[in-house]
């Protein structure tokens, strides 16, 4: 027997190869537990995908062969950097004849413009159609935070969430233990804890977050959500100079001037990450996707010491600011059926789990986050998974659902940096609101 393994005969090799060849498609088919669902009904078609260049698109693109074998559909895919992809998407949709069938949108930026321009196909009829939707699709598995982003104000579901980014509070367990500080329960507690942890003589800041114009806006909106208030209400009114908004801006100013590292006025996420990863900041508010580099001992001095917590409750509400990407099918696509099969496959449980296992982001489905084997083997620890699930349950968009999101971030971003420079929050917000109001009004007219 052992001799056969070491020196297999030609008959055995051919037999083994035959089994593998015959067995491979069966394995793929079984993986999708498809019962009688016909994945091949659009075989021979070619679909074009426009994605954003990231570790997530890399993972999906690497498995395109699997999709092509499963469906017989050929995939022509392109992934380009985020800013360029957004420009391309806008220009192509405005031209009326986009070159792609499927596009990945940053829903926290492009949701409203996609609805106003009627860019995308309503997915609800396809989900309801048993001949088009695989029985194991399990739509209910998508979490509420992701689906909130994918659903337009008129109830249309024009995207399928791919990944949801929750803002969380990273904290340095070692520094907390040294000073005997508990994880903050409220937003006010964050400032109190940061004051205890702040130690400029040792070069340690109590708290770090983004101060750079534009990038800093979600930090302020995080505090505003603690007042149960969005920056723009459902009727399109700006809430940016309300007492709640001023409260959030004052907290933002105090955290950035009293307990932050020097120079946070120019910090984006990468500078914040550097400060936290080198043990120079006790807390860091930012997106959930930084666990991988923080837990990598070759890149981080705080690996194994990082705590993950849901953003503490505000005075009136308890929300986790969320941001999301989603797949949409172009309204003008002639291959909507094939495109829908791609969406089902790209967001299936296996691919969402694969994203999670590779540290490429938090999935829009709940099931991967409850996968016991994944939790056990992950270097992020159970606290990270609990934080994601907890944040998903209280997720709320961290940016307004409007067309000029970039201008909003620019104008209010400048106001926030002025506050770090010493300006009065109330005056700055009033000025910024006045400047942004005509931009918002104009955007809905055009």
């Amino acid at each position, binding site marked *: 027997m052992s001799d056969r393994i070491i020196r297999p005969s030609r008959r055995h090799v051919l037999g083994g190869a035959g089994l593998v060849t015959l067995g491979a498609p069966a394995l793929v088919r079984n993986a999708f537990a498809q019962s009688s669902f016909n994945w091949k009904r659009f075989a021979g078609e070619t679909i074009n995908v426009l994605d954003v260049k990231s570790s997530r698109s890399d993972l999906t693109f690497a498995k395109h062969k699997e999709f092509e074998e499963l469906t017989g559909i050929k995939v022509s895919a392109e992934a380009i950097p985020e800013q360029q992809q957004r420009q391309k998407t806008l220009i192509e949709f405005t031209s009326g004849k986009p070159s792609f069938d499927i596009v990945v949108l940053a829903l926290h930026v492009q949701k409203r413009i996609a609805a106003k321009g009627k860019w995308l196909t309503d997915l609800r009829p396809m989900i309801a159609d048993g001949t088009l939707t695989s029985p194991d699709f399990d739509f209910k598995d998508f979490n509420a935070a992701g689906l909130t982003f994918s659903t337009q104000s008129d109830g249309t579901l024009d995207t399928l969430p791919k990944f949801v980014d929750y803002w969380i509070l990273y904290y340095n367990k070692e520094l907390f233990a040294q000073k005997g500080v508990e994880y903050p329960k409220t937003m006010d507690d964050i400032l109190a804890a940061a004051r205890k942890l702040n130690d400029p003589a040792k070069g340690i800041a109590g708290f770090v977050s983004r101060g*750079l114009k534009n990038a800093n806006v979600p930090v302020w909106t995080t505090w505003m959500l603690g007042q149960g208030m969005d920056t723009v209400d459902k009727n399109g009114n700006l809430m940016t100079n309300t007492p709640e908004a001023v409260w959030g801006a004052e907290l933002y100013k105090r955290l950035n001037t009293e307990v932050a*590292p020097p120079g946070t*006025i120019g910090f984006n996420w990468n500078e914040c990450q550097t400060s936290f990863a080198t043990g120079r900041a006790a807390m860091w508010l930012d997106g959930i996707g930084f666990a991988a580099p923080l837990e990598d001992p070759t890149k981080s001095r705080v690996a194994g010491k990082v705590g993950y917590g849901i953003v503490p409750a505000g005075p009136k509400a308890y929300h986790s600011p969320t941001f999301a990407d989603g797949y949409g099918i172009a309204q003008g696509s002639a291959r909507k059926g094939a495109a829908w099969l791609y969406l089902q496959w790209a967001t299936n449980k296996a691919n969402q789990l694969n994203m999670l296992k590779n540290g490429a982001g938090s999935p829009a489905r709940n099931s991967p986050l409850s996968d016991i084997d994944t939790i056990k083997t992950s270097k992020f620890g159970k606290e990270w998974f609990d934080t994601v699930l907890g944040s998903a349950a209280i997720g709320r968009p961290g940016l307004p659902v409007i067309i000029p999101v970039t201008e909003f971030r620019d104008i209010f971003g400048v106001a926030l940096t*002025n506050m770090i420079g010493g300006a009065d929050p109330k005056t700055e917000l009033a000025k910024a609101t006045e400047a942004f109001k005509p931009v918002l009004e104009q955007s809905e007219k055009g």
Partner: protein
Amino acid sequence: MSTAVAGMSRNYWPFILPALIAVLGVIVFPWIFTLYMSVHDWNVSGTVTFVGFENYQKLFTDQRFYEAVGHTLYFTVLAVVFPVGLGLAAALTFHREFKGRGFLRGIFIMPMMATPVAVALVWTMMFHPQLGVLNYLLSLVGLPPASWVYNASTVIPTLVIVEIWHWTPLVMLIVLGGLANLPSEPYEAAEIDGATAFQKFRHITFPLILPNLMIALILRTIDALKAFDTIYVISQGGPGTASETMNIFLYLQAFAFFKLGYASAVVVIFFTVVILLSLLLLHVRQKTKWNV
């Protein structure tokens, strides 16, 4: 005679035509189209409406535009004066014979070969207020940490440091070219007359290399005016709008806010300024030419 000239002109047309088409296609047409866009409300996601000079009127009442113009001029003056001055000094140093001159000159011109974006990323790390090497070096000599690009009042001078490091070698090369071509007779005459080293520089070297310096000045001015990559990567025009030059302002209007009509008006104004400045510098250069 006139028939012969006309015949010659006709014969030359096939040679001129390709260049003419290229110039019309890549210079004249984009220019006319930019002018056309600048008098329209041209939003990528909306309709295109003729608005006359409204974009220009709006621009001249936009406080942020004026700030951007001020930042551009401040940055340009510093990013021209220092590299030209230091480049001249470096050229005079490397023009002399000394041991290891070739090697040191090679080292000196290395920054010029680096990609601006890569340069900007490296400097960004060096400027980090907590972990950057620059504040560490300051601490070694007992100086307090600086805010570098993380402070509204120091951001432009700090960005100029990167420009100086990157582009002084170019000025040095241009001036060295001029120094290599200097005739020896005026120096011999000056030696006989007992001129000092400074007098020789003031009355012989400087006037003779002035045409080269003017070339360096024109190139540096145009480069500084159109500086974008370094500023965008390092500060993105911040903190706030403290380093927002006309190029950054223009980029935001066109590619972040997609207001192409408004951005085109900025381009028209900016281009006019650059053309006027270049003409002025070229005129000065003509004046400094050697009268052989």
